[in-house]
């Protein structure tokens, strides 16, 4: 096309692009008119995108990074970290390296900067070799007295434990910035003294059992929620509007009450001197000295969490059931199917999207639940999230907390993927 501004309308064939009345190609014209709409759409979603980046992408990235990155070793002993990196690991390190170690230690002892004190290093090494903390604090106190070689001999004089090649192998590992040792710890594994990966001693295997317990407790809570919610949702969806609205408020009322209040209410209900035990004793079901322990254990966690998560199951089920007209069941009945057969073959399959949404929602919420198990879980009702919180708040082993958190995230993603395979995410209906 040589002249697009011809006054005569250009001939339209299958090969020439369509031209708008003012001679601009139609596609270009269309793009121009829709551009403003696209810009506006982008502008409107901008706050959400920013919010997601700040509140979601960055923290999770930070967590993933922290779970493998721990610079304590190189922060505390910068010079030693550089030298030990090239050590071949045979026997004991050379006296040059030990000299740097002793000088770094003496310097670190004077350092008061958070994250760079000898205490930080001692804690870090203690994760790898439990009980080694005092070795570092003791040695550091005397490090500035060692002024001349042989340095190794001087160290051994302070404590015989320094005469151990495996200790120096561990130090070589600890002074590297990137490590998988927190993932090993989170899955109850460790480096043995020779540096290969082994399972932790039986006494120290705590994370995997709690992770499994978290998964199956969440599954149990989800199943219980489903069993309770399905008939309730059915009732809600079939009752006349006024009655169903009233019942819906009863379902939502606890939802609007503070989580803490609800959890404490369960304590009042379930404790050994609580309402339920009192009623049982009064009715003579149990003896006064045989009161049932229903709280501060797994039972308490399950009861309270089923109660708290129930609305998340009822709401999607209800909204799906509401859209199923009664004529389907009537049609099935008119064709000769019994009530149960009609329910199984006609009604139930149509509620599957709601079941899928409800179970997914409850399961994912349950697997990461924190407050309720912390308050009513006691010791055997603790979930993985309580351990994560412990590491973040109490032991301050953030790297281990991050590794556990990442594993939890991966578990959720695996379940989501399984769900997608089984039900199809397109089939989820939240309302």
């Amino acid at each position: 096309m040589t002249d697009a501004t011809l006054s005569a309308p250009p001939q339209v064939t299958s090969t020439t692009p369509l031209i708008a009345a003012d001679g601009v190609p139609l596609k270009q014209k269309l793009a121009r008119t829709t551009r403003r709409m696209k810009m506006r759409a982008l502008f409107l979603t901008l706050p959400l995108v920013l919010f997601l980046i700040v509140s979601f992408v960055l923290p999770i990235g930070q967590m993933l990074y922290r779970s493998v990155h721990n610079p304590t070793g190189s922060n505390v002993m910068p010079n030693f970290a550089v030298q030990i990196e090239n050590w071949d690991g045979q026997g004991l390190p050379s006296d040059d390296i030990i000299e740097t170690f002793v000088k770094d230690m003496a310097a670190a002892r004077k350092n008061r900067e958070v994250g760079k004190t000898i205490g930080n290093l001692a804690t870090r090494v203690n994760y790898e070799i439990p009980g080694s903390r005092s070795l570092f604090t003791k040695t550091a106190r005397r490090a500035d007295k060692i002024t001349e070689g042989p340095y190794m001999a001087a160290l051994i004089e302070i404590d015989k434990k320094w005469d151990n090649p495996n200790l120096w192998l561990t130090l070589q590992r600890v002074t590297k910035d990137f490590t998988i040792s927190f993932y090993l710890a989170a899955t109850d594994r460790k480096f043995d003294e020779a540096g290969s990966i082994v399972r932790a001693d039986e006494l120290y295997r705590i994370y995997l059992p709690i992770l499994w317990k978290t998964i199956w407790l969440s599954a149990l809570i989800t199943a219980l929620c489903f069993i309770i919610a399905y008939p309730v949702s059915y009732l809600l969806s079939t009752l006349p509007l006024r009655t169903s609205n009233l019942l819906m408020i009863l379902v939502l009322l606890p939802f609007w009450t503070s989580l803490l209040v609800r959890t404490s209410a369960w304590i009042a209900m379930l404790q050994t001197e609580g309402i339920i035990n009192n009623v049982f004793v009064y009715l003579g079901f149990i003896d006064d000295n045989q009161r049932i322990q229903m709280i501060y254990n797994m039972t308490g966690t399950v009861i309270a969490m089923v109660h708290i998560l129930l609305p998340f199951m009822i709401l999607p089920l209800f909204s799906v059931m509401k859209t199923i007209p009664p004529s389907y069941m009537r049609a099935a009945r008119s064709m000769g199917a019994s009530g149960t057969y009609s329910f199984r073959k006609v009604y139930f399959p149509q509620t599957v999207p709601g079941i899928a949404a409800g179970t997914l929602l409850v399961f994912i919420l349950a697997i990461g639940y924190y407050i309720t198990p912390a308050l009513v879980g006691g010791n055997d009702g603790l979930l993985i999230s309580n351990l994560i919180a412990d590491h973040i708040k109490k032991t301050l082993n953030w790297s281990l907390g991050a590794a556990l958190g990442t594993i939890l995230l991966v578990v959720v993603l695996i379940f989501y993927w399984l769900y997608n395979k089984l039900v199809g995410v397109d089939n989820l209906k939240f309302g």
Partner: protein
Amino acid sequence: MSLAAEQTNNAAHEAHVRFENVQKSYDGEILVVKDLNLDIPAGEFLTMLGPSGSGKTTSLMMLAGFEPATHGEIYLGGQSINNVPPNKRGIGMVFQNYALFPHMSVAENLAFPLKVRKMGRAEIEEKVNRALAMVELPDMGGRRPAQLSGGQQQRVAVARALVFDPELILMDEPLGALDKQLREQMQYEIKHIHENLGVTVVYVTHDQAEALTMSDRIAVFEDGVIQQLSTPDDLYERPQNSFVAQFIGENNKLHGKVSKKSNGVCTVDLDGGGTVTADAINVGAAGDRTTLSLRPERVEIEPEQGSVPNILSGEIKELIYLGDHIRTRMSVAGNDEFIVKVPNNAGNIPLEEGATVRVGWMSEDCRALDPLAP
């Protein structure tokens, strides 16, 4: 056994479906169906016609078994079915929204009633294919209902109600969701299926044209009572009360007072002036009020002198050209909505709005009925 009871029993045997003194109330305060008595012989196409809230759908639901009758008996093939659950009644049903199961294919939908009856796979396949062929959708078995057009879904719903060979089919406004053209086409198709299979059909609709097209007999419902039960032409030509006259077809109403009544013909003094004679169908004694019912196509403009006994003058208010006829709105005897359909004939006098002309009709085309509440 008394004679009356024996007669009742005989009648119950002859009729395929029989409602006997059936009443229905949902709230214990209002009777939705008041004392329904209805016999439907085998093979009949009976339509329950009426405005919404007239009790027609409730009657159908009682027959299907989804609503229990508050009082009275319903018989199917001579057996009382009051205590028979819907799945044991063996009645095919087509629902207003078709109620095709969305999670099953068309073929699975059709196979549903056959699987319930534990038929063999080969037999099911044969019956499904035959049913699909009957509604002219032979290759649609693999599709989901959502992939079909409204008309196709409607056909599948009909096929599903028929596939297990029930002797009675109930249809609850099955064509309500279709556009006009498709609706008319489906009316003929359902009518032909009924004629070919010889099943009994009870059809519920509020569309009088649909009822007139399809039915052997029509039961006109209003206020929980059958106002008239008759053939389509009888309903149109000889409505028994002013509700039926009004509901079936177009109808001009003239109010007045009966001045004389003899031999089935009465003389009525119209409120708007003038005196006419009419067939006394449903009127009281002389002096009672009445409503005259007159079909628009039975009114003649400028009739020849002496050809018709009733002649009034009227002013032409509006002319609407409709091709085959001219719809003329006039003011006659105080009624501003008096409609006359003037056939589009070559020899017609040209009509003008505002002109005053004479209108006339035969006595037997004008029916004096109960006075409708003003």
